[in-house]
């Protein structure tokens, strides 16, 4: 019987840990990871599924701090050269390229991440794995919008005067919407004039322009807007919560982008950071996240597409390849100027 005592110790220890989680952070900074996440659905799903999985696996705790991708880059830039303000970044494609260019994130060492090899090759990034694919379409309130929309053009219908919502370019959602409009109007990433011209004609219909897609979701919830651009995951989460909302893909092709996770340069806890990212790649985690209300599109070969993901987004990984993608390098070059022009066009 050499082990019972240590077993009891372990039990007592984990009980103590559970009690201590109520204590203020920083007390156990020694084995605490700080990871950035996005607001809204992402914060919720990672808190619910990823954090406990990671804690169980690594024995460490994690602070998940919701920040826009751009805010993450700003904080990392501010702290450049010193210790990083957080260890794991979570970014969309455009900001990820920017962060790589600015030397804010480290190359991803696949050897430290057993689940990395299990991803589809298209998701195995040099600087970090893609953890999902985000797709956008139109969300609407079925109580007030009787004919389901099918294309972006529906947003321009006169009956939706003062009822449409979009987001600003601070979020990838708004950016992707604008890029797609541009594409349909015959523009390219180098020339956004067609998009802004088209945007101008949408103004009478706009009820609100949210700063990010989280705020956008809240507007649906408060019935401030009846129809608008929305992210698939967010719309489905709201629907699952009982908000009257329906998501449809547009007929002209679904704009989509990869969302990636990175270990930042100068991370205080690089090993824990790898463990955290790897946890996000674990089949168990991805399978759990694919379930409603989250509907996170998996990137692991070991998780087959199911449920709403399968019915609305993709039945096979090849379906994902048929979506609409943009040249984010060019987007990054133009973003500052577009933001200014966007500000100008949408001003009341």
């Amino acid at each position: 019987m050499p082990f019972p005592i240590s077993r009891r110790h372990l039990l007592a220890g984990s009980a103590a840990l559970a009690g201590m989680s109520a204590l203020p952070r920083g007390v156990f900074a020694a084995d605490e990871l700080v990871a950035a996440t996005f607001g809204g659905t992402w914060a919720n799903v990672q808190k619910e599924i990823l954090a406990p999985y990671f804690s169980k696996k690594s024995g460490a705790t994690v602070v998940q701090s919701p920040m826009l991708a751009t805010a993450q880059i700003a904080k990392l830039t501010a702290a450049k050269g010193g210790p990083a303000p957080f260890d794991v970044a979570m970014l969309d494609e455009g900001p990820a390229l920017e962060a790589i260019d600015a030397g804010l994130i480290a190359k991803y060492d696949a050897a430290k991440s057993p689940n990395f090899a299990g991803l589809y090759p298209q998701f195995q990034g040099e600087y970090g794995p893609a953890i999902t694919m985000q797709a956008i379409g139109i969300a609407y309130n079925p109580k007030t919008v009787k004919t389901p929309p099918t294309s972006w053009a529906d947003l321009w219908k006169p009956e939706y005067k003062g009822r449409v919502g979009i987001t600003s370019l601070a979020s990838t959602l708004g950016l992707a919407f604008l890029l797609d409009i541009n594409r349909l109007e015959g523009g390219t990433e180098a020339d956004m004039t067609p998009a802004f011209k088209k945007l101008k004609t949408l103004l009478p219909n706009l009820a609100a322009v949210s700063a990010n897609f989280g705020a956008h979701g809240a507007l649906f919830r408060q019935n401030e807007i009846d129809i608008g651009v929305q992210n698939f995951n967010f719309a489905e989460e709201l629907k699952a919560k009982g908000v009257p909302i329906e998501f449809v893909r547009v007929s002209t092709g679904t704009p989509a982008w990869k969302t990636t996770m990175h270990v930042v340069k100068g991370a205080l806890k690089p090993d824990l950071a790898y463990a955290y990212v790897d946890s996000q790649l674990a089949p168990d985690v991805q399978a759990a996240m694919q379930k409603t209300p989250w509907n996170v599109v998996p990137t692991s070969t070991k998780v087959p597409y199911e449920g709403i993901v399968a019915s609305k987004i993709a039945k096979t990984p090849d379906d994902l390849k048929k979506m609409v993608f943009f040249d984010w390098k060019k987007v990054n070059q133009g973003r500052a100027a577009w933001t200014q022009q966007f500000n100008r066009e949408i001003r009341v």
Partner: protein
Amino acid sequence: MRRYFDWEGWSFTAVFALLSLITILVLIGPTIVIMMLSFTGEETLHFPPTHYSLRWYRALLDANELQDAFIISIKVAAITVVASVVLGVSAAMTIARSKSPWMRGLETLFMSPLILPALAFGFAALMMFSLLGFRPSTFTLSIGHIVVCVPFVLRTTLASLAQLDPALLDCSVSLGASDLYTFRRITLPLIGRGVASGGFIAFMSSFDNVPVSLFLQDARTQVLPIYLWDIIQNQLDSRAASACGVIIIATIVLMVLMERFAGFSRFMK
């Protein structure tokens, strides 16, 4: 009698009373709305609620991030108040006694965070700290808060020092007391209410600060108002209402206590 009816006086009083009434309603309206909303039994925030319950208050008990943010905000506010009081009171002692234009200049400098855009200062401080190689932390956050909160302590302390009869201090000295003894036994007790009032305002203003925290907080130290802002803006989470309810109740209790013990409303004018 009718001929001399004072139409002018009547209309004046009527207009002023009506405007005052509107102002009072507008001032307290939002507080009442939030208090009612915080007791909603519904899933979403709609006013007026169709039924009431304590469910969102109960939900606060499990809201760990909210509690953490609350604790961090309290911690930062406490550090801010202590530092603001120590720095502000000692500076006020000099400023109140000096007539030199240099001191007037310093006073203006110390008061200027009140009128300068706090967001611009937050941004400036972020650049400064990153230049110095400080990592955003409770420490940098507190420093930012102290800068914007010192003016409150300084203002109320100066106001109470202005009411302090300098003869009392001279008298104490002439009775053989040292400067320190005089400060401890005479000055401090007599300006205590002003200092406490300033400290209270500084506490509330630190607890409520967004523009400076936005730049200086790090991922670990998310403060309550920003967390609330986040859940209000991103999710219109109904716990936001109950959290606001708790803040309002706590504020009112603190205010009543401060009024009783320090008569702080005098220092607000």
